[in-house]
């Protein structure tokens, strides 16, 4: 089971020539994946680079040229190639990927990121290429980056700003058991506990 982007990257870099299919339902989750993936790959193995190839605004002929450019790169074996935004040229791109599938093995890994409702079309367009992905499909929505104490602190600050109250005052009211009159007080309290926990662990 994959619990976030770091697990996914660990799996991806376990050996050369891994192919992974990631589907998405919400575009922000897909965009977050692209950002987090680059960072996580760099964090995991400094010598590996991530190369993003978008099919947006490309026709099939332009896509094949761009793909050949990636294939000719002398760093291909140390590159994680991410193909995304192929939905508009799926038929053409599918045929190209099907034809170039052997050559694509030169990359360290290939990730195909596709909208969930277009998966069927992709399988129809490049059945041989899709064979290489195996039965597992990853979901961009489940590949979030791990959170840090700064993320938790930021979330706490947003509660303070939203309710015009310091966390200290909130905690005092919360601990008294008299009610805070704040609907989402539960989450505020949770974040404070989480932050305290993470800080305490960092000190030990």
């Amino acid at each position, binding site marked *: 089971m994959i619990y976030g982007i770091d697990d996914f990257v660990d799996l991806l870099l376990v050996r050369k020539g891994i192919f992974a299919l990631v589907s998405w339902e919400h575009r922000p989750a897909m965009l977050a994946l692209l950002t987090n993936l680059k960072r996580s790959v760099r964090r995991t193995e400094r010598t590996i680079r991530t190369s993003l190839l978008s099919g947006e605004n490309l026709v099939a002929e332009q896509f094949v040229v761009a793909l050949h450019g990636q294939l000719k790169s002398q760093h291909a074996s140390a590159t994680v190639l991410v193909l995304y935004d192929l939905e508009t040229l799926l038929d053409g791109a599918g045929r190209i990927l099907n034809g170039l599938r052997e050559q694509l093995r030169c990359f360290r890994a290939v990730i195909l990121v596709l909208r969930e409702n277009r998966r069927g079309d992709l399988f129809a367009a490049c059945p041989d290429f899709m064979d290489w992905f195996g039965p597992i499909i990853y979901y961009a929505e*489940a590949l*979030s980056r791990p959170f840090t104490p700064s993320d938790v602190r930021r979330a706490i600050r947003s509660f303070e700003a939203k309710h015009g109250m310091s966390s200290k005052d909130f905690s005092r009211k919360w601990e008294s*058991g008299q009610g805070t009159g704040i609907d*989402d007080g*539960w989450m505020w309290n*949770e974040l404070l506990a989480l932050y305290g926990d993470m800080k305490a662990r960092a000190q030990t």
Partner: protein
Amino acid sequence: MTAELTPKNYLQLLGACVLGLRSLAPGRRTLQIVRSQKSESWLVKRSDTYDAPGLLAGCPAAHAPFELAKGGRLDLFLRLRTNDKGLAEIATYRLAVRQIPPNINNIVSLRLDKKEGQPRGDGWDPKLGDNPQHPWAHLHLNFDKSDRANELRIPTGEVEPIVLLMSFDHWYCNTFDV
């Protein structure tokens, strides 16, 4: 409460349990899980009620409760931590069900809360080690009718969240013939 499993294994078990709940409408029967960078804390969330701004920004499913098969919505929130032995410790849980269709028990909504700390203000009884006005782990029945309705807090003690989910599932499926 400590599970005799690592957080990953516990979440795998929880995920398998959620997949098997017939009371949940078909579709995304998945949990949204995020963890801290050092894997010492884990959050599980499927709820549109309690937002943690920024923390789960890239996880849209985290903000969507589970839809129930014959009507109603189920919110779930869990916070786990990894203890010194590497095992999962369930620090807090909250399970809330709303908009339950008419049923023989006349339950419209219910919520089970278990916080980490215990408010020791009004009502705290040192002999009992709890607060009868606001017990540590408790059940609210029909809580969302009004603020006063939310005052009913029946102490439950700590309950394993998987048991909670399965127990609710059993009642729901029997009541609504799922």
